[in-house]
């Protein structure tokens, strides 16, 4: 049985279509990632699955319970961490945990085992007010609170946004650990580089899912040749590269530009054309999920 089943869900706010006929399944014990930029509809989807919204059309179930009719049962068994930091900033770390434990008829002792690997890192600051924690520590506290009642499914809406790179990495390690304990996790992120930490991902944009697969398979379906180019004057390079024959797309990517080409592309004539540009260099690249995302967006 799937942990989460979404069938043809649509949701609009006024004239804006936040979700447009979305369907997907999340298997039990899976770490499933929703990858997409702001405005892709990720938060709306989370709020639907956590029973905070009702869909305009379509149906969905979480842990076998319908999100509209059986929402009480869902609320008992899921952990939810909204995108916005949603703990009480004027309460201490410990007071927050105790409150959320009481909310779920649990207590810190009962849940200590599960949350220990995470909570231990913030335990030295347990008497500090939540509002005075760093971004990474806030996320750890929020995750601890979401876990305090042993949920079977965890919904994490952009948990790593606004967190430094080291803490982000740590956070994903924690998620892998939780997954190994059998908890199904649905997580969203705008960072493409985090996608590889998921079992499967859904690439979303403008209320639609463009593709669902494992990160490796998604990269493997990138069927064009890809190069990285650079020069001293990157902007000039971008303009001139786009005018060359055989170029499907050229876009800035980190410190280089990525060049997607078709069969008409000839690397030698491309090199000749840019020979007089200072610091010019071109090398073949392995595509990443972000390249795939950009490709899908253009279709």
């Amino acid at each position: 049985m799937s942990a989460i089943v979404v069938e043809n869900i649509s949701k609009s706010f006024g004239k804006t279509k936040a979700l447009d006929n979305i369907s997907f399944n999340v298997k039990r014990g899976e770490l499933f990632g929703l990858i997409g930029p702001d405005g892709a509809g990720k938060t709306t989807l989370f709020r639907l699955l956590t029973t905070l919204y009702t869909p305009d059309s379509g149906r969905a179930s979480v842990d076998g319970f319908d999100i509209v009719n059986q929402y009480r049962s869902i609320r008992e068994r899921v952990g939810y961490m909204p995108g916005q930091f949603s703990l009480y900033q004027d309460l201490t770390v410990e007071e927050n945990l105790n409150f959320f434990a009481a909310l779920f008829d649990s207590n810190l002792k009962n849940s200590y085992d599960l949350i220990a690997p995470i909570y231990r890192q913030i335990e030295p600051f347990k008497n500090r007010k939540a509002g005075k924690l760093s971004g990474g520590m806030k996320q750890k506290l929020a995750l601890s609170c979401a876990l305090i009642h042993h949920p079977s499914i965890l919904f994490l809406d952009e948990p790593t946004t606004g967190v430094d790179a080291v803490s982000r990495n740590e956070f994903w390690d924690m998620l892998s650990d939780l997954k190994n304990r059998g908890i199904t996790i649905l997580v969203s992120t705008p960072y493409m580089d985090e996608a590889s930490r998921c079992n499967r991902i859904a690439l979303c944009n403008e209320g639609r899912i463009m593709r669902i697969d494992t990160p490796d398979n998604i990269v493997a379906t990138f069927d064009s040749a890809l190069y990285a180019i650079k020069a001293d004057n990157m902007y000039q390079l971008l303009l001139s590269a786009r005018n060359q024959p055989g170029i499907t797309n050229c876009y800035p990517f980190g410190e280089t530009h990525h060049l997607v080409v078709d069969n008409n592309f000839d690397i030698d004539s491309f090199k000749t054309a840019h020979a007089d540009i200072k610091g010019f260099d071109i090398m073949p690249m392995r595509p990443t999920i972000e390249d795939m995302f950009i490709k899908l967006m253009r279709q």
Partner: protein
Amino acid sequence: MKQKFSSFIKKESLHILRDVRTMMIVLLIPVVLMILFGFAISTEVNNLNVAIVASNHSESVRQVADKLSANPYFSFLGYIDNSDIDIKLRKGEVDAIIVFDKDYDRLLSQRSQGVDTPPAIQFIFDASNTNIAQTGAAYLQNVISSDLTHQEMLNLHLLYNPQMKSAYNFVPGIMGLIFILICAMMTSVSIVREKEVGTLEVLLVSPVRPIKIILAKMVPYFLISCINLATILLIARYLLDVPMSGGMGGIITISIIYLILSLMLGLLISTIASSQVIALLVSAMVMMLPMMMLSGMVFPIENLPTVLKPLPYIVPARWYIEAIRKLMIMGLPFSAVLKEVGILIFMTFAFMGIALKNFKNRLE
């Protein structure tokens, strides 16, 4: 379950205790208002500056002057010349001037013999403040006429508040206002804060019915309001000497009903308002102002234009203030305010019903 509810109350109390500034304001507002209205802002006329114009300082004129000097409501500034009247008034040095006719003694004696005489005394008032002028003129007339023998005696008998102390008028009004302010405004803002900060989102995705958390929110505010009630009653009784002759029990009972009503009103506002600012505005502008205007606290309800006459009937503060007046000032027994109690209880349940119906278990 009980333990759960108490941990919610504990969390709410922590919120309030951590916000020391707000808590101090909430606890001090009643004290400040009571003292302001009780002493500083008063519609009584005190220390009215009076001068006398008299061509001969006869015995009867001096008697009036002595009366004025001895009276705490007036300060007798002395005799001035006829030509100074205008200047003294313009400079604001005097508020009122009593002018005695130069034939005052003769007219007085003629009058005592039953002869119809023209007026022998003139009051000149600075009426730029009509309140002072009117009240002062009435006082002054009282003082003078009590001195004039064989004059037609007007028998004015003021019941319940014979000294016309303004504190008697304002204490019930302030009580009506304060509890709306603290209960309705504070609870609605604190509930809406959870919406705004996003914590409500997490609370909703939990097995607890959110209404329970919100009811837990009301407990600390109820307790704070009880402290305020005690402060107000103590100040009223011992500092402002309000009689409370109707019995403390009745006053406290009806006040607690009114407290709960205000809490429900706060809950109702929170179901409508989407942000703290709106909650604040709704409580302040939509609730408090009409309550001041339409409850009879500031303006007599009887003076309202006919179109607005039905409005006070739906203002809870009006019933509360009326009941408190009966109990506190008129000294009526509790049985005299049963109608008001009934109306307040009905309103409490009505507000609660609408609020619970409006309360959403989802975000939309």
